[in-house]
């Protein structure tokens, strides 16, 4: 099986999961892609020009398209009225695959169904504008019947969705059109990257969908948020994401799902945060400790955020210390 979206192909060649739903390889530098392509696609060593690398991928993927026996796509929208599916791409990779292979398969979650073809006017505009800011995706393809001599299959996936529909507080999340806007705006996602979520759909929407699939496994995700509400502000289908994050916290805590580390951590944080002197002292201690402790003390089972990524370098001083030095007692 060959992934054909350029970003998806890059991370497939690296044996990695995607980190973003619209830009799967956004965490990689062009130097890393250049080195990968040099090894796998035999591009020139040290070549990093995105144009050159994209051209190499174009040749490589065209070979695969021409040989494929079946093409598998996702679905952006399915239309109840006409019984067809709509697939949107900018690269044209879905169309290259589907129209060349004798068998085409479209895989979709059951929530992708919209009532009428007229509703596509609303959704195609929403999707492109919120995903990349374009007025429309370059290719908006409508599939209703197989090509002459070919076969077409539509696979409708439940995977917990029908159950999720029965949760009044959370069912709104099924309106998601996977535009990625909530990720692009989220201060946590932007600092930590998609891999720290350890799920297929990362970011704010992933943090409210994953607990519905497996609360035990993903109970920490709703806590990794500032509840700033930026995600709910940008969401084109108006999912109350930050409110759902808050509600998932209540459920996780109520079911005793708080891991022991978090429970103690919360108690300790409450203690420290209510005592400014203790807070200053702990801050100083942490800044020094992060610098001096050996790796295994920082990156261990107690630190979830260090599992798939490096922690940032701690600053030399706190804001308070900086302010005291630079601003206090100084004439304006």
């Amino acid at each position, binding site marked *: 099986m060959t992934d054909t979206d350029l970003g998806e192909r890059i991370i497939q060649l690296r044996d990695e999961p995607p980190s973003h739903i619209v830009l799967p390889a956004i965490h990689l530098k062009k130097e890393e892609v250049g080195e990968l392509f040099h090894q796998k696609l035999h591009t020139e060593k040290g070549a990093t020009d995105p144009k050159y690398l994209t051209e190499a991928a174009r040749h490589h993927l065209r070979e695969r398209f021409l040989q494929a026996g079946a093409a598998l796509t996702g679905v952006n929208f399915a239309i109840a009225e006409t019984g067809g599916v709509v697939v949107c791409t900018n690269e044209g990779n879905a169309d290259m695959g589907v129209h060349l292979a004798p068998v085409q398969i479209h895989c979709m979650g059951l929530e992708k169904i919209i009532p009428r073809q007229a509703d596509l*006017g609303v959704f195609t505009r929403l999707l492109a504008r919120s995903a990349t800011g374009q007025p429309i995706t370059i290719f908006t393809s409508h599939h209703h019947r197989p090509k002459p001599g070919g076969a077409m299959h539509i696979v409708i996936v439940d995977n917990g969705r029908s159950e999720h529909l029965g949760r009044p507080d959370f069912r709104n999340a099924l309106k998601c059109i996977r535009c990625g806007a909530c990720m692009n705006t989220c201060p946590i996602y932007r600092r930590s990257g998609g891999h720290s979520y350890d799920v297929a759909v990362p970011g704010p929407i992933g943090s409210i969908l994953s607990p519905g699939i497996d609360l035990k496994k993903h109970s920490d995700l709703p806590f990794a948020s500032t509840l700033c509400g930026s995600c709910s502000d940008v969401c084109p289908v108006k999912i109350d994401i930050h409110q759902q994050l808050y509600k998932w916290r209540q459920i996780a805590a109520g079911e005793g799902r708080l891991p022991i580390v978090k429970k103690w951590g919360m108690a300790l944080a409450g203690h420290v945060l209510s005592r400014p002197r203790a807070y200053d002292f702990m801050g100083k201690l942490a800044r020094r400790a992060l610098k001096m402790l050996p790796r295994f003390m920082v990156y261990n089972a107690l630190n979830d955020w260090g599992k798939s990524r490096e922690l940032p370098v701690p600053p030399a001083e706190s804001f308070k210390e900086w302010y005291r030095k630079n601003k206090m007692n100084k004439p304006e």
Partner: protein
Amino acid sequence: MSKKSILRAIRQNQPQGPPLPDLPSFASDAPEAPLAAFQAMVTAMGGQVANAADYPDLGALVSAYFPGETSVASTVPGFPGNIPLQNMASPAALETVGLAVIPAPWGVAENGAVWVTEKECLFRVLPFIAQHLMVVLAKDRILSNMHEAYQRVQVDETGFGVFIAGPSKTADIEQALVIGAQAARSFTVVLE
């Protein structure tokens, strides 16, 4: 989980929603001069516009825009190109097409997209697999926005139809925009 139990679960859990709204026409949103807006949008999306009236015929226009192009596949009546599409055994044989010329029944002013179906393409893969894509569109077939487009087009009239709004592009490597990802490298709309 069987199909039956999934459908049962949906029926049981489905909330009682409000009735389907009538879609507004969004006419206030529509560009005032659709033709000018369409031309501007095609350019903004990375395509180019050619004026049929500036050339004696389509052949002359094609030679002016793609000088030296030796493999032209056309489905435009009266302009056969030089690749006999009718004789092609499989879509994969179109891999060598340099330029595809296809009639487009509709254009959309707000985003520079054209609607094309398998009826116009002969082979569904033609507009994608060709190195370069040219579509021929009548000036009086430009609709204002996607809402109007979905009123005029019947999406299941043929087995496949697509809105195309420019050349294939990607920004997957360090978010640098590159034109010419998997499908056609350039997009030319001929207005007649």
